[in-house]
């Protein structure tokens, strides 16, 4: 995960108890307070609305408040089909988000293109931006989404201080 990329503080303290406790506290705070950016393009948005609604509550997991500005959000939920025209927009939004940030691929269209195996749909957003959790389904049941969120929380709990910052996604560097 953080091979050879040790920050100054880690070099001094190594893998000592002080740093692991700091990691634990920071990760605990991060995983229970996701600010979602629901990048909703298609039908999965309906399922997202129902997950965020009162019955299948996302607020229980701390991921209640959607922030529609990339600067204020930290969990980019890509909900729905991403077409070729939409791809640079998605990459721009991802690059504008401040670190630490995670990407949650909601539904099969975002994960792998879904059943749109054609010339105008991006076959999976992981060809554009790094993804942390993939939740398949067309659309996924709200329980699956909650499971995905819990798995993301487990992933965040294992992160180290030196994992961030990571840098921007590669697609935006293309000269146009």
């Amino acid at each position: 995960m953080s091979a050879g990329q040790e920050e100054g503080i880690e070099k001094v303290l190594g893998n000592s108890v002080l740093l692991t406790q700091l990691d634990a506290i920071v990760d605990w705070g991060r995983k229970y307070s996701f600010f979602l950016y629901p990048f909703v393009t298609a039908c999965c948005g309906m399922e997202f609305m129902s997950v965020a609604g009162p019955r299948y509550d996302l607020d229980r997991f701390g991921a209640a408040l959607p922030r529609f500005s990339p600067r204020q959000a930290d969990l980019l939920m890509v909900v729905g089909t991403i077409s070729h025209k939409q791809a640079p927009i998605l990459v721009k939004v991802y690059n504008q988000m401040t670190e630490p940030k995670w990407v949650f691929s909601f539904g099969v269209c975002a994960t792998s293109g879904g059943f749109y195996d054609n010339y105008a749909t991006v076959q999976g957003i992981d060809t554009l931006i790094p993804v942390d959790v993939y939740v398949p389904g067309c659309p996924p049941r709200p329980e699956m989404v909650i499971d995905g969120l819990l798995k993301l929380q487990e992933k965040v709990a294992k992160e180290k201080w030196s994992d961030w910052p990571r840098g921007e996604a590669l697609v935006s560097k293309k000269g146009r």
Partner: protein
Amino acid sequence: MNVTLKKLKDSFPDSIIDTHSFRGDDTAIVKKEHIVKICEFLRDDDDLLYNFMMDLTAVDYLGREPRFEVVYHFYSLKHNRRVRIKAPVPESNCTIDSIVSLWIGADWFEREVYDLYGIVFKGHPNLKRILLYEGFEGHPLRKDYPVKERQPLIGPKN
């Protein structure tokens, strides 16, 4: 039903390549150079009166010469008859005359065929891509367009 094919064959004996009729569906395969005159005849002749251009599309027969075939479907509101006109278009000379002068509605149909097949319509007022975005390279409904082609707008795979 066979009124149409008979009249076409009488009026344009050297433009019709082939005709066939199956269970009431009439089809005429015509030479692409005479398509405008034939369509005008179909529209204006009193016995035919095909005033409704229902569809304009194309087919790619990869491996056959001529490669493409532009297919027109006409319907006569007065006589309640349909006819299909097919015009083969070779790949080397991938153009055909536009019928926008006869039916304005053919405008977007021809733009769609240009967008997805690459067949150029001569005399079309505004021939540019209609369904796909401007930076798209290639014509996707051709049979030799690879399914997994990666377009420049979305960059190479990471």
